[in-house]
């Protein structure tokens, strides 16, 4: 296969791309061996590709990347996450607290008690006369030997004492506490059964 100069010029770019078929390639190589003009064309085209393919030939302006990112940042939708997220979190927390409060108020008090003493306290007759130290934490049956600061004693009913936040003395009011503990457990069990089977 013999190729003319015009055909070589037409295919020289494809030749450099490696996109000519083997027969044409062989014919062109044969042609280059005998044609210095076409060799000069080939060498020049190859040199052009090599030179312009060099990274130094395209200088991106200084700060291009930073300016591009800044423009992107300005164009991107603002993250509402911060304000909205906080508002949602607060709303959720309020909802949890509210449901907790509602739950507390709707349950039988026996299930809400958290200590043996408090649980048993509800079985102390509300009108029972008791005494408590005004800045203390415990209320007693009058005459209890475990009363401290006897000069600060106030007399009240057990109901008032419990409403004020006093806890019953585990010694002088022991009989109510023991009874209350057992009764409290029974009531709790009953309440749980009622929750599982409302019928």
């Amino acid at each position, binding site marked *: 296969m013999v190729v003319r100069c*015009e055909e070589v*010029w*037409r295919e*020289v*770019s*494809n030749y*450099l*791309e490696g*996109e000519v078929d083997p027969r044409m390639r062989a014919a062109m190589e044969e042609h280059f061996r005998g044609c*210095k*003009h076409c*060799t*000069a*064309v080939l*060498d*020049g*085209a190859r*040199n*052009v*590709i*090599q*030179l*312009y*393919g*060099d990274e*130094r*030939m*395209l200088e*991106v*302006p200084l700060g*291009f*990347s930073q*300016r*591009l*990112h800044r*423009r*992107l940042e300005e*164009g*991107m*939708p603002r993250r509402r996450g911060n304000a909205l997220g906080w508002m949602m979190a607060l709303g959720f927390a309020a909802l949890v607290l509210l449901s907790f409060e509602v739950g507390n108020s709707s349950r039988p008090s026996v299930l809400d008690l958290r200590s043996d003493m408090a649980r048993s306290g509800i079985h102390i007759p509300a009108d029972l006369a008791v005494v408590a130290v005004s800045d203390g934490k415990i209320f007693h049956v009058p005459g209890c030997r475990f009363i401290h600061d006897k000069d600060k004693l106030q007399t009240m009913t057990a109901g008032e004492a419990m409403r004020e936040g006093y806890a019953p003395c585990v010694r002088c009011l022991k009989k109510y506490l023991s009874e209350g503990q057992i009764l409290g457990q029974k009531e709790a069990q009953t309440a749980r059964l009622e929750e599982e089977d409302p019928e």
Partner: protein
Amino acid sequence: MPETTASLKNAGEPRNEEALIRRIREGEQELFYELIRPYERRVFAATLAILRNEADAEDAAQEAVLKAFKHIRQFRAEARFSTWLIQIAVNEARMRRRKQQAVVMEPMVDQRDDEGDYTPRDFADWREIPSETLERAEVRQKLAEALSSLGQKYREVFILRDMQQLSIEDTAKALGISVPSVKTRLLRARLMLRDLLAPGLGGSWSKALSFAKGNKPW
């Protein structure tokens, strides 16, 4: 456990662009910076090829990248992201150029039809221009001037293929032209540049450059 940005950057690990794009679509918009980082240069090259002015090219490149972000949901996975991005850049630059066209004069070489054969004008032995000479600003300047004198359709194909190393197919897709058109324009661009740089013709500038004693001029 979600992937972190750092894990996507691990050296030696191929970038999982599909995963990046999915996460951006799901709301991790800051990952878009990571996605475009390797292509910033190409985007600029594409807009510069068309607009020929650095400031305009930079502005068009920024706008193109922003458009790519806004339309990321329209990107189809069967295409290559880089090609899609360059397409947007090319369209943005072309749109701006159309607006400028009333005042922009095309160089003479752009009037050539790309149908028919191109005949090289200089047949002298080619004196190689070594890559090392690119260190010299005046050499880069001359090469840039030669490139700038090409018509737009040749310049954009040449820049995307030979300067940014896009494949012939991706160049065709990015420019919205056929593969044979890319090949024809590429041939002409290469031969025209060769003529412009050849010492016997437009390249006579190369003779004027001084060389240190003992160094071989091209």
